[in-house]
């Protein structure tokens, strides 16, 4: 079995999603190659080579790959796909955009968002917002995306060779205009050990910032939000947790004024400890919470912030 894993990066740094997806690749078993595709991403290729269990890093560097547009990246992957039985990527926005294209171009069905590897061609994946687990088998060559919160990161004790690969002539029908990204000093949401989330009940961006952020910072936590809080403009879309947002798996998840809709809890089921603060004792979030605190978040959250800051 030969496996090609698409590395997740921004041309500067290798994302931790890659080391986690690598663990899934190694569980599938076989020789794992990492593809680092971008522009001026030599440092990323070097970091990729240090991941334990990588046999080789393929480094594709070209101006056309600067923004890793799905149309181009999928063509690049297809151009090297012949030598591989398994093509996989973390289920990040890049992976989700690129891999179904690769699958279609190779006339294969993709296995999306795997959470467990049961054999070289046998996987588990959540369906219905994680309320059911589908066990699926492929019959040969396979394209897979990996839910990275379900896998621990591989170590960084490797020293794989880096091979430059040629980039085919690529032209995309899509033109990149700009990325509008939110930079933060806080931990990255999907890999954070602690997450504090706020919902619609915060009422405004000002109050979200005044109530949720101090608790997050006192705990060194990442900040999450319900979709409704995102739609109301209290929080950027990047903070959305849930079925159609991000999946988190922290040691501690604190949901403040979040009702616990199916779609939200889909993203937090792998948290070790869930705390819910809600004024409604009947709120569905309490069915999932390990510790339920009933009351007004505008009093309780600042009190909690003071208590943990001591």
């Amino acid at each position: 079995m030969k496996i090609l894993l698409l590395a997740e990066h921004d041309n500067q740094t290798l994302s931790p999603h890659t080391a986690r997806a690598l663990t899934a690749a190694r569980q599938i078993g076989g020789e794992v190659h990492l593809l680092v595709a971008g522009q001026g991403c030599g440092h990323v290729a070097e970091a990729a080579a240090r991941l334990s269990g990588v046999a080789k890093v393929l480094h594709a560097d070209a101006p056309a790959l600067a923004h890793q547009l799905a149309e181009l990246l999928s063509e690049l992957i297809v151009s090297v796909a012949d030598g591989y039985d398994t093509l996989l990527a973390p289920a990040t926005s890049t992976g989700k955009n690129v891999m179904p294209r690769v699958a279609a171009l190779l006339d294969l069905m993709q296995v999306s968002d795997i959470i467990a590897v049961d054999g070289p061609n046998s996987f588990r994946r959540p369906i219905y917002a994680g309320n059911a687990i589908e066990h699926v088998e492929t019959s040969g060559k396979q394209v897979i995306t990996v839910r990275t919160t379900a896998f621990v990161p591989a170590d960084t004790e490797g020293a794989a060779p880096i091979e430059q690969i040629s980039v085919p002539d690529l032209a995309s029908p899509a033109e990149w205009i700009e990325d509008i990204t939110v930079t933060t000093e806080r931990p990255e949401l999907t890999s954070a050990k602690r997450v504090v989330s706020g919902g619609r009940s915060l009422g405004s961006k000002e109050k979200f910032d005044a109530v949720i952020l101090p608790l997050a910072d006192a705990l060194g936590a990442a900040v999450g939000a319900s979709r409704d809080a995102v739609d109301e403009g209290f929080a950027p879309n990047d903070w959305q947790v849930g079925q159609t947002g991000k999946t988190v798996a922290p040691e501690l998840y604190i949901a403040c004024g979040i009702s616990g809709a199916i779609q939200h809890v889909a993203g937090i089921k792998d948290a070790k400890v869930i705390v819910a603060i809600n004024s409604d004792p009947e709120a569905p979030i309490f069915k999932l919470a390990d510790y339920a605190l009933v009351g007004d978040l505008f009093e309780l959250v600042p009190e909690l912030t003071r208590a943990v800051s001591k």
Partner: protein
Amino acid sequence: MKILVPVKRAIDYKVTIRVKPDGSGVDTDNVKMSMNPFDEIAVEQAVRLKEAGQASEVVVVSIGSPKAEDTIRTAMAIGADRGMLLTHDTAVEPLAVAKLLVKLVEEEQPGLVILGKQAIDNDANQTGQMLSALLGWGQATSAAELVVDGDSATVTSEIDGGLQKLRLTLPAIVTTELGLNQPRNATLPNVIKAKKKPLDVREASSLGVDLDPRLKVTKVTEPPARKSGIQVNSVEELVAKLRDEAQVL
């Protein structure tokens, strides 16, 4: 410009699903079915483009059970002009759906295909990207904003880390995110009008696409249950529990 919008009939998003005890799947008997919410947003967006004079016709297509006619009528009540239903007895995988859509695109020659970014039943998030690859058209996924301007479309997509703006040359593929719009509630007169709009029903198998599933689903199981929690009565008690019992502080 014509807009093609594929819509899927799925278990309503408010329903708590039940896994069948024999592991054969999820129970869909006597369960409320609705249009996949992301597809409803796609229909709304297409209808808005038509209302703004930027599209001439909105055509919806559903693939699956004959009951998906309801889903198509719902889309028509929002404002879609015409429907196509490709019937098939068993579930059709995203790859086969994308191939069927290629055939319809060849027939209809739309300038834009707007799809939901994912269906809330299988959560696969594949069809739009697959269709884009098979057609060689540009794609923008998880659209939070879509502006059509002559022969191009500018799309703001939700991505990890924030937003990404892309310009697509039409024809192109766009998949929808929740924030793109708030679908309207269909009025009663429009629901009645929808019943009379043209609907073309064909068997999916008549389009010459291999519909056999490529993936074998061996079973469907319940997710692991979480142990039940406790109520704490004060912040002080909560902090003590987190520190001493859960040991996460």
